[in-house]
């Protein structure tokens, strides 16, 4: 039983691409610089500043998960799992926002 299942693993083999890795890395650096610039440009602690910083951080995390953690090469099941987690997280934020917005 165990051996039959472990054979499925071989389907996941893919060619790593250094070009993609370096491009991702470069993009992450640019986004980091953008975060720093945005914090100065918007005054650091305003709602706008935090929103921009969080948005950029989310894009960076997604790049890491998709390219460095190889989600793009993974089975559809894993993509669905990650999708479910994102939906859950956004729902938590939304429901808490209902409290904060109307309190």
């Amino acid at each position, binding site marked *: *039983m*165990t051996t*039959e*299942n472990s054979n*499925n693993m071989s389907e996941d083999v893919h060619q790593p691409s250094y070009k993609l890795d370096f491009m991702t890395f470069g993009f992450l650096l640019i986004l980091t610089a953008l975060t720093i610039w945005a914090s100065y440009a918007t005054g650091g602690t305003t709602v706008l500043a935090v929103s921009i910083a969080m948005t950029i951080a989310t894009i960076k995390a997604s790049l890491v998960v998709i390219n460095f953690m190889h989600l793009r090469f993974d089975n559809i*099941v894993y993509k669905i799992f990650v999708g479910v*987690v994102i939906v*859950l997280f956004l*729902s*938590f934020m939304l*429901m*808490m926002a*209902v*409290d*904060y*917005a*109307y*309190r």
Partner: protein
Amino acid sequence: MSENHTSNSEESFYKSKKGLASWIFTLDHKRIALLYLYSIAIFFLVGMTLGFIMRLELFAPGGQLMNPRTYNQMFTFHGVIMIFLVIIPSIPAVFGNFMLPIMLGTDDVALPKLNLFSWWLYVIGAVMALSTLVWGNGPADTGWTFYAPYSVTSDTDVSMLLLAAFVLGFSSILTGLNFIVTIHRLRAPGMGWFKMPLFAWGLYATAWIQLLATPIVGITLLMVVVERSFGIGLFNPALGGDPILYQHLFWIYSHPVVYVMILPAMGIISEIIPTSAQRTIFGYKAIALSSMAIAFLGYFVWGHHMFTTGMSGEAAIVFSFVTFLVAIPTAIKVFNWIATLYKGSIHITPNLLWSVAFVFNFLIGGLTGLINGALATDVHIHDTTYIVAHFHYTMFGGTIFVFFGALHYWFPKIWGRMYNTKLAYWALGLVFFGFNVMYGAMLVVGIQGMPRRYFDYLPEFEHLNKISTVGSWFLVFGILLMIFNLVRSARKGKKAPRNPWNGVTLEWQVPSPPPLHNFDHAPILSEKGPYDFSILGEINKYETTKIDK
């Protein structure tokens, strides 16, 4: 696997290796399950003793045995033990570990080393929690919920208990992860998703909650430790923090976790009932999918613990509405169980009666929950002993009753012996009676206005508190009688056959107790799903043990 019909040749997993090290470093899912069982049993007894002493304190108004601070520490420790060390790991770590691989037709979980590691994390977390008894300024007095800002300012040893809960959370995550991988990858050939036993479905839904919700409470508890240690204002308003944010983060985990407690229990009921009625379960798919629906909806109801905190009214309405939705998949299960029993050829056994007692208690737990979920009524009963009774009805009358039922159901499989049925009925009767007297009285005195977490009370509450304490004596006596019966039977009971209750799921096809690699013949699966009783004859062909009736 051998096709030998008379093969009792493979030794049971108890005999495969000997010595302490062969247990505490084992990778066998069955031994790990038993390690969990014995650890959880010890902590249950400790927690029970604390509960018993608290009830003695409440026998009469005024201080009887302790001062208020000790009472606060007692209910905190009782709550932490019962939640983090007993009920969260209980069914998944014991019966999930033991039965899931067998019920799926495989020889172990997908990640056996991780499985052992999770038990070790459990032990480390337990030792950390216990260390607060002898260390620092004494055990925490915050309640198991660690609400800020008091948890930030209390001079007791809150940080260590928080770190213990953090480590225990990891243990729970690893168990969940293991089960998800096992269910995805190790099902026997031919066992599709909708051919899995319903216990496996319950564990699967649970595992997703363990995996996705536990990290949130882990981080939240660490945030309290950081706030206590470095004075960073996260939750304490005096430092610019928001105490309601703590409650949001805490309950985002701690509400879904009540489904970690109940879904595997409901899975076990869905095993015991078809076996006892000797017929296929009514509404298999509805039960399987309702577990997933409960797990999913359970994520969005956490705010119902916070109606009186000053949270916005709009948010409260949303949370109250979603709370009522959870009743739908829950009711689907209960109706299906009753429909399965209806006109079945019912065999009364202790495990069936534990299950019926569960349905009774859980109905009371569920219906009292509707009153908590409704905004207007919750304001009146919030923080009264009504709430304490409500959650004991669901967690204790629910999950722990099923845990006891499962012990009786799978006892012959795990220990290869039968227990004394007469004593089992007596124990069940005492526990059921004591439980309902104790918590029934707490429900009523709660509605009358007695607050929870108080070591003293007004004279008008004395009568019901006395009744409640007397109930706890029956309850505790019944539990001790049950343990005595099971421990004695595990050593001296009659030898059990493979299939004493005539079940058809795969665990009844392996010897009792199972050998190290579980199966001594290829598992027999029915085309018609896991509860097809027409294959019973074929399964029982493998019986080799002589049963003296």
